[in-house]
């Protein structure tokens, strides 16, 4: 009985201790919410540096994983408790919704301010800025302008293992450029018993990236956009051809077993441990591979080109971007900090410490050669956030899931094309009715 009494007493004490809230935050500090766990340490260092240099206090708060971060930002938006600087994780339409609801400041003016004839926005790769930009006449009805500051840049393309190439008797300095070359190399690798292409295709956006790369290369960007607009059907022979590429790769067993439901982290392990000759992955992989296998000999390459008529395209642009809270009382200070953060010196520091491509063009000097080879292809990049028109999410999902069905031999390309078109028509009808 005594034990119970003591326990209740302890519980009550703890309970009231629990009621005490935390120490009050420093009201003058600029608060930044971010989700990049690997960079938290570096951010803290940079915050201290900034304070030493300018006396202004900056506080970085980490919320991970990114799903939890996105939830928190959405919830805070509803209660006007957003911090001074944060990120919008989601698609362009989410970005637009935040802006229209008044949660994000229009930074066009600050970005356009010139110093010695160079505007802040000119420091960045053009595509990195475009991802954060809304053009006049955009489909979301957002006032034109630039609303975010790119922190880094990523591209999504392919990598290949030079040592495995040698082992199969292929020239390690000559990755395949065309589709025929690629399938040729793949069959040589197959005879040498080396697994070929791995990727996290369980995360269907990766399938979408590869498919849209091939599609834009084959039929040209405009036709793809026209399909999104509804002017071209998915049953068009060009789309069926895009899907056939996947069937061809399935028939020739180009994909590593299980790639269709693999999470990207498993795919990265597979490539890092030299169990696949190719990987379809993003430029962040440099950091991942370095940690798992510093002796890995590999290089970046573009996905094989399927046509000479149109330029090859890969997804690329801003990796992470920060926005400024329109309702913030420390807006000017926040913008000033972002300017400093994306300055050449800080960008080089970030790139060096975290092996990410900087968004500031001038900071490319200090990065590793393999990472730099990703940056070489920046001109070929595009990204859904830059598209002038967007496809219905359910159509995208049907298309991507359809590709998965092709990969497991369940459906034929024509079937998937028809199914996708059916869903497209349904969604278009719904949209017209509203």
């Amino acid at each position, binding site marked *: 009985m005594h034990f119970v009494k003591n326990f209740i007493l302890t519980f009550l004490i703890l309970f009231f201790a629990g009621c005490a809230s935390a120490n009050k935050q420093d009201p003058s500090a600029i608060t930044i919410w971010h989700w990049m766990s690997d960079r938290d340490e570096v951010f803290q260092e940079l915050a201290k540096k900034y304070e030493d240099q300018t006396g202004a206090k900056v506080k970085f708060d980490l919320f991970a994983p990114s*799903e939890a971060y*996105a939830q928190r930002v*959405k919830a805070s*938006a509803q209660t006007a408790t957003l911090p001074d600087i944060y990120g919008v994780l*989601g*698609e362009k*339409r*989410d970005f637009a*919704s*935040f802006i*229209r*609801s*008044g*949660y994000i400041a229009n930074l066009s003016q600050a970005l356009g301010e010139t110093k010695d004839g160079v505007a802040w926005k000119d420091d960045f790769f053009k595509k990195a800025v475009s991802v954060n930009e809304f053009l006049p006449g955009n489909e979301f009805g957002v006032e034109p302008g630039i609303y975010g500051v790119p922190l880094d840049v990523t591209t999504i393309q392919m990598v290949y293992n030079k040592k495995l190439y040698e082992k199969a008797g292929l020239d390690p300095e000559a990755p395949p450029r065309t589709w025929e070359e690629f399938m040729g190399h793949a069959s040589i690798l197959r005879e040498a018993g080396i*697994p070929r292409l791995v990727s996290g295709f*369980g*995360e*269907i956006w990766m399938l979408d990236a590869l498919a849209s790369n091939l599609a834009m290369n084959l039929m040209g960007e405009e036709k793809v956009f026209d399909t999104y607009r509804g002017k071209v059907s998915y049953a068009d022979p060009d789309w069926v051809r895009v899907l056939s590429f996947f069937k061809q790769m399935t028939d020739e067993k180009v994909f*590593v*077993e*299980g*790639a*269709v*439901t693999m*999470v990207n982290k*498993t795919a990265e392990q597979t490539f890092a441990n030299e*169990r696949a000759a190719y990987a379809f992955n993003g430029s962040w992989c440099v950091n991942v591979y370095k940690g798992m296998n510093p002796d890995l000999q590999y290089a970046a390459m573009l996905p094989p080109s399927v046509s000479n008529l149109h330029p090859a395209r890969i997804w690329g642009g801003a990796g992470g971007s920060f926005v400024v809270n329109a309702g913030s009382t420390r807006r000017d200070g926040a913008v000033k900090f972002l300017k400093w953060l994306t300055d050449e010196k800080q960008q080089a520091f970030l790139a060096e410490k975290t092996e990410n491509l900087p968004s500031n063009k001038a900071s490319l000097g200090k990065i590793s050669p393999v990472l730099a080879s990703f940056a070489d292809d920046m001109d070929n990049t595009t990204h859904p956030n830059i598209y002038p028109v967007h496809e219905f*999410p*359910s159509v995208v*999902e049907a298309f991507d*899931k*359809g590709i*998965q*069905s092709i*990969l*497991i031999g*369940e459906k034929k390309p024509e079937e998937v094309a028809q199914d996708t078109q059916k869903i497209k028509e*349904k969604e278009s009808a719904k949209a017209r009715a509203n």
Partner: protein
Amino acid sequence: MSFNQVRKVVGSYVFVAPAFLLFVTFSLYPFLKVFQLSVTNWDGISSSMQYIGLENFKDLWLDNPVFWASMKNAFTVTFLALTAQNFLALFLALLCDRDIRGGNVYRVIFYLPPVLSGIVVGLIWNWIYDGNYGLLNHFLRFIGLGDLARAWLSDAKTALIGVSVIHMWKGFGWGFVILLAGLQSIPRELYEAARVDGANTWVMFKNVTVPLMIPVFILVSILTILGTMQIFDIIISTTGGGPGYHTEVPITRIVSTMIGSSKFGYACAMGVTFGLILLAISMVQIRVSKMMRQV
């Protein structure tokens, strides 16, 4: 009414007051909010939203085959859990109920899968099921059944079962703990008396254990159904819902609608529908349990 009578009536309510207060604040209010959102076209972000009546529900019930396919998948996993998982849990609980050597150790070990973080579970099982270097395929080749080897989570025929096995492996510990507690609450004298009457193990099980354990069985089966229908983390860390739609379940559909399509209101309608279905199933079970108690 005398003061004592009033005190008596109020007293009973005092017992449930704290629970009820918390419930109204943290369960009822959010639920009503979600219900309210389910009749709008909100995207989760805008400061404005439009009331659209039962549009979301109409589309969901009449025009969303993917959602109902995912519901079927969840039912499949739940059926497997109700049978295989709970029989295993019951069997192990029965074994550990007796004074078996090392019983305490076993109890801790069987509780390990639920304790483990989802990250470890995902990593281990991805490795076990891997098509090239997976442990399961290694084992099959080792015992000469190499023909059966495949990429278990990518094969349309085995993906859902594979995911179910992970869920059952992770879940039997819960049932085990509850069933064991139930078994240990049965007075030992009843078993003694039965043994004196000449009953063997099976008869004792049938006449003593089962009748007294019926409420616990019902409890475990309700919990199993509720827990398994809401399966999510395991799927996200292994197959992501694929290949195709073969391992999609209601919660993965709700989350991808909420985040992937930014259709928050629609996702809320999905949540309400799903919840009502679960509620109906549980009500049926409670009804059945009441009937069985009277037998």
